[in-house]
């Protein structure tokens, strides 16, 4: 009995020392971790706040948040939505989540920009994106996306999502395309085209995203991005900002 007690105590002592050391390090790295994650988010927000056509910032450069305080000022609380465990919206029909908080920026010309962070399931894990929707004069347009989490996607296939030439295939989309629901060309039953004008028209008006030529036929990751975007659009229309 005494022996058992002794071995138990030794093991307990080792675990306690380990736990103590770890909690010290945890305190030490807590800030760098939060900082690294915040910087990534801020960078992504800066990216999606660029105009899709001109690549210039759509609002005054010095108004774009650069730290957590200035970012918090743009937090938007839509009525009737309660954030739970960092998630503000999920849908029964689309897999994924829209994270809380949601950001809203006012444009000088009465327009509003909604910047949303959300995720859906990719090939090996979650794919997270940041997107911007511009609402102006009763029109809505998907202005830009940035992919912040795609680490578990396959290099050379799904992970191509990080290239600008691939991300550019997802925007801009107008209301008719968003309402029809975004889908990849394979699922829409159209064959990929080299005619840029046709490709852009299909996307803007019908929501058909052509990725099969730039992602070597991989659709799972593209679909994850599309699911997240459709979910975000559904959230915005339920929040009543799209009338």
């Amino acid at each position, binding site marked *: 009995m005494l022996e058992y007690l002794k071995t138990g105590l030794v093991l307990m002592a080792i*675990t306690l020392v380990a*736990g103590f050391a770890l909690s010290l390090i945890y305190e030490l790295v807590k800030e760098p971790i939060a900082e690294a994650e915040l910087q990534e988010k801020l960078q992504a927000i800066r990216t999606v706040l660029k105009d899709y056509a001109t690549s210039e910032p759509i609002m005054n450069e010095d108004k774009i948040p650069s730290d957590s305080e200035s970012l918090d000022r743009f937090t938007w609380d839509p009525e009737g939505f309660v954030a739970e465990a960092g998630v503000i919206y999920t849908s029964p029909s689309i897999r994924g989540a829209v994270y809380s908080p949601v950001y809203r920026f006012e444009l000088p010309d009465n327009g509003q920009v909604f910047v949303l962070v959300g995720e859906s399931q990719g090939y090996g894990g979650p794919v997270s994106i940041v997107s911007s929707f511009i609402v102006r004069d009763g029109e809505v347009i998907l202005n830009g996306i940035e992919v912040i989490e795609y680490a578990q996607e396959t290099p050379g296939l799904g992970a191509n999502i990080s290239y600008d030439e691939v991300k550019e295939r997802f925007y801009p989309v107008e209301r008719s395309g968003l309402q029809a629901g975004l889908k990849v060309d394979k699922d829409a039953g159209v064959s990929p085209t080299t005619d840029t004008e046709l490709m852009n028209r299909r996307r803007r008006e019908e929501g058909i995203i052509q990725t099969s030529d730039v992602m070597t036929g991989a659709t799972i990751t593209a679909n994850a991005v599309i699911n997240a975007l459709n979910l975000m659009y559904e959230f915005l229309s339920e929040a009543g900002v799209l009338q």
Partner: protein
Amino acid sequence: MEMSRLFVIFLSAMLVNNFVLSRFLGICPFLGVSRKLDTATGMSLAVIFVMTVASVITWFLNQLLLLMDIPFMRTIVFILVIATLVQFIEILLKKVSPSLYEALGIYLPLITTNCAILGLAILNVQQEYTLMETIFHSIGAGAGFAIALIIFATIRERMDLYEMPESFKGLAGALVTAGLLSMSFMGFQGLVRL
């Protein structure tokens, strides 16, 4: 909806994201105990059992860790619990069902260092599964491990009968075979639409 989601989780853990062939978890037992079919079967059963029990326990423990706000203790707590659990199951089996112990006993100690068990527990946490989803995910993962291991063992039993280049005997040949098997499992890719 709920039921179909559980089924999708189960199926994708078993076939699409097969633990061994696509997530690379549990390779050691996969290569180590696949020489004979009956040992492979015994190992598979032991793994399914331990996986399910361990996942449920670690799910509750994770809630506790979150409550106490010490998420950084997760790895230590999980691995200790798995090690203790395996010991406990071993003792229990010996007392309750000697015949089952006979069949599974020798595989149990090997399971502690099977990264599929700890990997599964951490995956459950990362995917933020509910208890029900955790259970289905674990059974699916265990079944996937079993399928891969048993198919692989039957192939290896036959491989012993054929002539092979000297350098490919043993590990190298087994790995190439596993590669071909993994390729065939990629065919399940489109099975589940997430």
